[in-house]
């Protein structure tokens, strides 16, 4: 009986899981894997370190207000494997960032991809949008 309950309990949680990133080890629960937000911004910091790197940048929302974003990637070895480096981004760079946003509405997310000033696209390594079970990702609209 206990086993059956536990099994159903586990399945319930499983249904809530939509996508599993291949890289990060600091949890999925805060993020909405069914969404993507793409915006143009200016880099204010590129923090290259364990456990995860993160990018800070300023971008305008739909109303034209400047919003400060923080978005993580995986760790440096993983990002090197995806073609990134400590010098990929520098303060003042004009970039286009696509993030997987957090659910709490804050301007925080995981980097799905970055388009550098030279036009090169760097993959964030968190995989594509889920194929099923989610709404279409928002795009091009700045912060949510």
């Amino acid at each position, binding site marked *: 009986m206990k086993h059956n309950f536990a099994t159903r309990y586990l399945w319930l*949680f499983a249904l809530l899981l939509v996508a599993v990133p*291949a890289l990060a080890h600091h949890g999925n629960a805060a993020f909405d894997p069914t969404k993507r937000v793409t915006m143009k911004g200016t880099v204010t910091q590129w923090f290259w370190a364990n456990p995860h790197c993160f990018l800070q940048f300023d971008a305008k929302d739909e109303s034209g207000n400047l919003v400060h974003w923080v978005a993580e990637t995986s760790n440096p070895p993983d990002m090197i494997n995806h073609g990134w480096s400590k010098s990929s981004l520098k303060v003042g760079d004009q970039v286009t960032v696509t993030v997987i946003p957090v659910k709490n509405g804050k301007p925080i997310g995981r980097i799905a991809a970055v388009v550098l000033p030279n036009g090169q696209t760097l993959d964030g390594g968190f995989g594509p949008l889920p194929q099923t079970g989610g709404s279409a990702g928002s795009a091009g609209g700045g912060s949510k």
Partner: protein
Amino acid sequence: MTRRLVASAVAIAAVSFLPVRARTQDVPRQPGAVYDSDKKGEKPAPAPKRDLTGVWEPAGGPSGGVQATGAGQYPSDGKPEHELPFTPLGRETFMAHKPTFGVTQVPSALTNDPMPGCNPQGFPRIVLHNFRTSRIIQTPENVVVLYEFNKKWRVIWTDGRQLPKDATDPTWGAPDPAESRWWGYSVGKWMDDYTFVAESNGFDDRTWLDNAGRPHSDALHVIEQYHRADRDHLEMSITIDDPKMYTKPWVAVKLRLRLQSPGFDIREMECAPIETEEYNKQFADPAAGIDAK
């Protein structure tokens, strides 16, 4: 009993490598590394006898050993075939754990994972969670494994000593009672010219087995097998035997590794508290809804 268990584990692991699952690997890839996809149609040279030395990388790509959602053979994904053979205590302990991945995941702010903050994840979690490029060194007395993840290492003794059965075994220089260890006590021997098996015990039960919060007790006994399939490949498996938490042993990890060049330099991957603190302050805490004071 132990010998029979080891033999069973070796047999299970050997069978489960047939056929070894091929991974298609596009990106990512570690610069300078060689993967099986680079050598299609190759005919590797025979395996050297009783030799594990070298730098080893998951043969299918660098992500092959990264198991975010739990031990590779049993990811915590709710699938019935991945349900572990918990004892009542094992299930109760598992449900009390709050991992940040898997079917019982919670937001990072609510986790009771013992690893964050650069605390040691110990063995076997380093292999069940994040096995990356590793160097194996052999001496007459031991096999040493240097792991990339968090720049850790461990020693498997091959000088004929036994695992500490009690507190008074002087071989280990252990106090009475023998202290538990984050990385346990390990001994190993060659089963044949190409198969090396190590056993470990004496673990600190504050650690978890994997990233999904699978538990272990102080009775944990780990069986670790390395089979040198040919010159370029090593097949590694980890079997978990913990009668307090699981009703039977289970093979948690099977990885096919590829030998890299002798000059391959393993990158530094250190967990620095000062960097982790900055990451938490700037990113993880706000993402979890924890505002800075």
